[in-house]
């Protein structure tokens, strides 16, 4: 059941107010939420509360919503695993931790947070008997500030001495990461250093070899250069710059209460940290769905025509639309899938992309183009189906508050940011949500739009092929098979932590845990990359399995949904069987553990000829396949590169 009109109206008003930087209007939202809870509409209330938690919240409102989240907490039972997060800080972190919890709730993450006494972060990591090691977090957040730098040079130090101090500074942090990771295999999130507003050398600060400013900026550079994959450097220096350094470092609250920054900015700080955690849990967004009229250009193409819309040079507003397009194109180039959802005649809408000389975005940049007169909620669903992505990985951008409201109401999974009326504010409106946060960029990301567009072409080829077999043969598929290793670790980790649909067990692993398995001779890891005549799909499947006593147990089997029904599963099975036989393991065993999203693989093992042998964890099923009693490989239309 969708949320009630009262809830949605209150949500719309709340988001509008927060976007406008107003405060104090949460009363209506709180009332509507409490009413919904009293009426037994717990899920609707939870859903509305989640969507009310945006980075533009002011501090007092954020804490009010946090109180509500905790109050309803027990009743808003969320599914999924509990993510354990340890926060070790050099400052008072209680408010920050509360707000991190709030934003993770908004992202749909259940978390348990351990917060050590402030100032003892080194002891916690170095003492093997500390609470940190009993807690066993999956994420360890080292919440430090510039005041934790331990090796600042004297102004008189020479370049060589400064280099030595930099090495020692970096070494002291790297030591903590290494110690924590070696024992916990956790992902570490380490703040970089937020430059203070004041500089005793003034303009000369960045140039003098031994100045604090120069040391800190070099140190920040060294952090990102030397951090291993299991360490994420959280760019708090950027947060400070965004806020304005004097505003950020409201020293009253440092001196009075040891707060790391002005309380007002703790909200954005927490959102930033949470977005890193959510991204690593596979909850980042993948696709930007764009309206056209008054979103990508000024005016209405159907009324104003090619010459009448405002876009491009010579007009301030027209240039602002162009800047927004350039930003969107850059998002596309870094791996965000771009889609168009517009109320227009399709030919009229496409013509702008083909013929308007000031357009930055062109048709090949758009993976899925939908322009018609249907309602946008239906069209957003169509786009999700065509691209084969989840609704919760989509962001819907529209200048029209009515359309935003309709999509919020009818497709609640989709993120719908408030957009200002002035196109100059569009980039900021999107940026502040950190929808597309990532901790690594790989080859697949850089080619994603191309891949999804090739997929749409494949689909039309499939429609015209006389049968599936002919179609698959016509694809001329070739696979590259490799174990997980340095070259594909990032992408493999990304698939393991983000795939929800074609994922038999939905077990999430950190880079460290994956490398442990790779290095263990009893474990077998396998990745498949697939190319065909339409293009390269990149790395699309990962398997991790453990062999013991003649049995190869499949721990993880994941495939990207964009290569469904191409015979990749059979290809992988053939390879697994071969590898197992070579090592004397004659039985394959695999489990299907159901989640809300992986129904698509419920019959996976049955389809591959496995026999059901019993139940598995969490209501799952356990399957086996004997390889030594006449089992034979099934031929597939996939060659090996």
């Amino acid at each position: 059941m969708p949320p009630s009109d009262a809830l949605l109206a209150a949500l719309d008003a709340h988001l509008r107010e927060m976007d406008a930087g107003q405060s104090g209007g949460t009363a209506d939202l709180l009332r509507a939420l409490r009413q919904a809870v009293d009426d037994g509409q717990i899920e609707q209330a939870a859903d509305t509360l989640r969507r009310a938690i945006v980075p533009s919240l002011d501090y007092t409102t954020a804490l009010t919503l946090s109180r509500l989240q905790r109050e309803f907490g027990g009743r808003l039972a969320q599914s999924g695993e509990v993510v354990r997060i340890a926060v070790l800080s050099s400052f008072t972190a209680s408010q920050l931790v509360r707000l991190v919890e709030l934003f993770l709730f908004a992202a749909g993450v259940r978390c348990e947070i351990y917060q050590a006494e402030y100032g003892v972060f080194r002891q916690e990591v170095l003492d093997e008997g500390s609470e940190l090691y009993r807690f066993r977090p999956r994420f360890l957040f080292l919440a430090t500030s510039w005041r934790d730098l331990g090796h600042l040079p004297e102004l008189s130090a020479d370049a060589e001495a400064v280099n030595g101090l930099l090495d020692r500074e970096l070494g002291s942090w790297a030591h903590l990461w290494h110690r924590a990771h070696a024992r916990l295999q956790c992902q570490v999130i380490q703040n970089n250093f937020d430059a203070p507003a004041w500089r005793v050398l003034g303009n000369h600060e960045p140039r003098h070899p031994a100045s604090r400013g120069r040391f800190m900026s070099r140190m920040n550079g060294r952090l990102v250069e030397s951090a291993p994959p299991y360490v994420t450097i959280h760019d708090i220096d950027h947060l400070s710059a965004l806020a304005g350094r004097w505003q950020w470092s409201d020293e009253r609250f440092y001196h009075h209460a040891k707060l790391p920054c002005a309380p007002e900015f703790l909200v954005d700080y927490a959102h930033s940290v949470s977005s890193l955690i959510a991204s690593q849990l596979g909850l980042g967004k993948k696709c930007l769905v764009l309206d056209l009229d008054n979103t990508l250009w000024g005016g209405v193409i159907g009324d104003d025509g090619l010459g009448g819309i405002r876009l491009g040079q010579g007009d301030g507003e027209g240039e602002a639309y162009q800047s927004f397009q350039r930003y969107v194109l850059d998002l596309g180039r870094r791996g965000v899938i771009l889609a168009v959802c517009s109320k227009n005649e399709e030919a009229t809408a496409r013509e702008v992309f083909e013929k308007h000389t000031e357009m930055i975005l062109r048709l090949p940049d758009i993976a899925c183009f939908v322009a018609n007169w249907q309602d946008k909620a239906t069209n957003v669903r169509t786009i999700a189906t065509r691209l084969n992505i989840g609704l919760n990985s989509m962001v819907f951008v529209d200048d029209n508050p009515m359309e935003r409201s309709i999509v919020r109401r009818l497709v609640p999974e989709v993120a719908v940011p408030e957009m200002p009326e002035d196109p100059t504010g569009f980039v900021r409106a999107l940026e502040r949500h950190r929808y597309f946060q990532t901790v690594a960029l790989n080859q697949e990301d850089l080619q994603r739009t191309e891949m999804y567009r090739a997929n749409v072409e494949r689909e039309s080829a499939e429609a015209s092929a006389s049968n599936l077999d002919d179609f698959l043969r016509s694809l001329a598929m070739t696979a590259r098979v490799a174990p997980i290793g340095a070259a594909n670790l990032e992408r493999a980790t990304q698939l393991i932590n983000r795939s929800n649909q074609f994922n038999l067990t939905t077990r999430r692993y950190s880079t460290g845990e994956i490398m442990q398995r790779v290095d263990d001779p009893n474990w077998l890891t396998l990745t498949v990359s697939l190319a065909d005549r339409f293009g390269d799909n990149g790395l699309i499947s990962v398997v991790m399995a453990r062999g013991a006593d003649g049995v190869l147990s499949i721990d993880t089997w994941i495939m990207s949904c964009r290569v469904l029904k191409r015979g990749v599963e059979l290809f992988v099975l053939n390879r697994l069987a071969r590898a197992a036989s070579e090592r004397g393991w004659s039985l394959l065993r695999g489990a299907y553990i159901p989640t809300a999203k992986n129904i698509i693989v419920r019959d996976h093992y049955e389809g591959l000829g496995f026999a059901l042998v019993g139940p598995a964890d969490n209501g799952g099923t356990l399957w086996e396949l004997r390889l030594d009693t006449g089992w034979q490989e099934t031929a597939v239309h996939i060659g090996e590169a």
Partner: protein
Amino acid sequence: MDGLHDQVQDVFRRVFGDDALVIQEATTADDVPGWDSLMHINLIIAMEKRFGVKFATAEIARLKEEGQNVGILLTVLGSKLSRLKT
């Protein structure tokens, strides 16, 4: 001062999440459940945002000390607001 009292009371209600909270000039931190040092900061921030004023570091500390009450807060706030007007 009555108008200011009501506005301050509103801020208290929001910060403490209690729509029925009533404050008087004699109310001290000990009289309001949950008014600890963290809540004190939340209160200061909410006041500053609501009234567009800034408290000095010494004032932030002093307003929470023994012997202080809402009456003193109202006086401090009132004098800041009157300085804003002139």
